[in-house]
């Protein structure tokens, strides 16, 4: 099956593990992701804060480019949650809001482009995997069941909400990732905060507030007995992974909760090597968790630390024997 594919900026570097693991799944799942040529950033939640029409035009440029590439495949897949929501919202509003449609197409025509509402169907990768490829097929592809691994599914926000095209039966109580975890042979744990916010761009705006939201998530995951978290969103992964040290320092906790992308977990179950799935790029290492099921992760060795030079003045020392007596 062929899909049009919009990777999004974060998959290029900060979440390259997501990108590589997704491409590694292509052969196994017998799908073909055709990247939109010369796509541009969707503007996340930042561009829309400054400009209204330009932000929709920025997103619609991708839809217009996808329309040019529509050739049998009508479905445009987005990997990042924010990209997905931006593309899906714009595609929907282009169909329902005539004024916006006229203005955006007017802007696009300045660059020689046009988007006809309804030509491209925007879906998130999880949605396509769950509904179009199906859990049954995924189950058949499992070569190395991850028996004994307890996994907490973390959906984040935007895959489920606002759900402009009504893709999910219940955005408050999704089961797609849990079913996927079970299909991979692992054990999905009860993780109450699975649809809560990871604080998005808050680490850059209000560190304390974002750390509090992260603490709630990590603490809930630890209490649910999970070995690791899996997620669908690059920003969720980055926030929980990279800010965990700072969070521990701030609250005096010592949590080590690794977080992987769901594609990495699927790849492991499909018998792919951790190296091919780019496991090991996370800041909080998943090696101890994966060692429980016998998967060895080759760690990128940390930079060699030189022992600090002893520059203090020579001090008299206790005789050893005397010290031992004490």
């Amino acid at each position: 099956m062929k899909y049009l594919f919009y990777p999004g900026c974060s998959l290029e570097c900060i979440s390259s593990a997501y990108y590589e693991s997704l491409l590694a799944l292509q052969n196994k799942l017998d799908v073909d992701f055709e990247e939109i040529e010369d796509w541009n950033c969707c503007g996340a939640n930042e561009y829309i804060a400054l400009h209204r029409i330009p932000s929709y035009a920025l997103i619609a440029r991708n839809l217009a480019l996808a329309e040019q590439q529509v050739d049998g495949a009508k479905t445009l897949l987005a990997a990042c949650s924010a990209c997905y929501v931006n593309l899906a919202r714009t595609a929907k509003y282009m169909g329902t809001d005539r004024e916006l449609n006229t203005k955006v197409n007017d802007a696009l025509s300045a660059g020689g482009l046009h988007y006809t509402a309804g030509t491209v169907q925007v879906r998130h990768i999880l949605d396509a995997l769950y509904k179009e490829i199906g859990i049954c097929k995924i189950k058949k592809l499992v070569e190395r069941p991850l028996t004994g691994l307890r996994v907490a599914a973390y959906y984040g926000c935007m895959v489920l909400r606002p759900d402009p095209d009504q893709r999910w039966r219940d955005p408050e109580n999704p089961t797609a990732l849990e079913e996927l975890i079970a299909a991979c042979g692992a054990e999905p744990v009860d993780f109450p905060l699975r649809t809560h916010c990871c604080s998005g761009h808050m680490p850059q705006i209000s560190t304390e507030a974002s750390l509090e939201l992260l603490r709630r998530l990590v603490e809930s995951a630890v209490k649910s007995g999970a070995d690791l978290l899996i997620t669908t969103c690059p920003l969720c992964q980055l926030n929980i992974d990279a800010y965990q040290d700072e969070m521990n320092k701030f609250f005096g906790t010592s949590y080590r909760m690794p977080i992987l992308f769901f594609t990495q977990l699927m790849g492991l179950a499909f018998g792919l090597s951790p190296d091919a799935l780019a496991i090991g790029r996370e800041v909080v290492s998943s090696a101890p968790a994966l060692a429980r099921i016998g998967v060895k992760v080759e760690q990128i060795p940390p930079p060699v630390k030189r022992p600090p030079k002893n520059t203090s003045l020579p001090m008299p020392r206790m005789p050893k024997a005397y010290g031992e007596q004490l």
Partner: protein
Amino acid sequence: MAVSSPAPEEKVGPQSFGKASPPPGSPPSQTAVLDFFRSISPGLPNIEFCIQCGSCGGSCPAAALMDHTPRRLFALIRAGELEEVLRSNTPWYCVSCYFCMVRCPQEIHITDIMYGLKTLAVQRGYTRRNKATDLSRTFAGFIERFGRSFDLGIAANHYLRHPPSDLMGSAKMGSELLFKGRLKLTPNKIKGIPQLKKILKRAKQLEAVL
């Protein structure tokens, strides 16, 4: 009463709701409020159905930081206190988690309205230089220049202006991400930059007409 009614001159100008502006001192007409919301948010924002239940504020992960919860914000807009609304930090602390939007019993497009209020506050010059607006501006600057986001550039630019509270921790985190190959030193640039610039220029002209 402690709150004195403001002088009529203060009410006109940036605070007006546009053509259907009511006489100063009285709350705006229902149509004026509706037109206002339709102009800042795409589709039908459904704001006229707000029953002030507070589900939005109750679901909001950032409500504790906000000057006004979304519910109060809508009440303020209905009462004609647009200046207070545009000065408040509420839209800027919205993390776009969309909890309010799916929980709202009246299906109001709250997050879209927040985006609209942000753009309006920027356009009418209500935003002070703060972390939230600076982050948006930095991000937008890189997109307009390269067509793609550039994490390292954005982080460097933002943190130079607003140093993080835990400088050593952030530096350590940055170096670790860099070491694991998760940060690129140079930005990716799309081929169609001239095209993108033309599109955005035209779109900005169209927005100005609004």
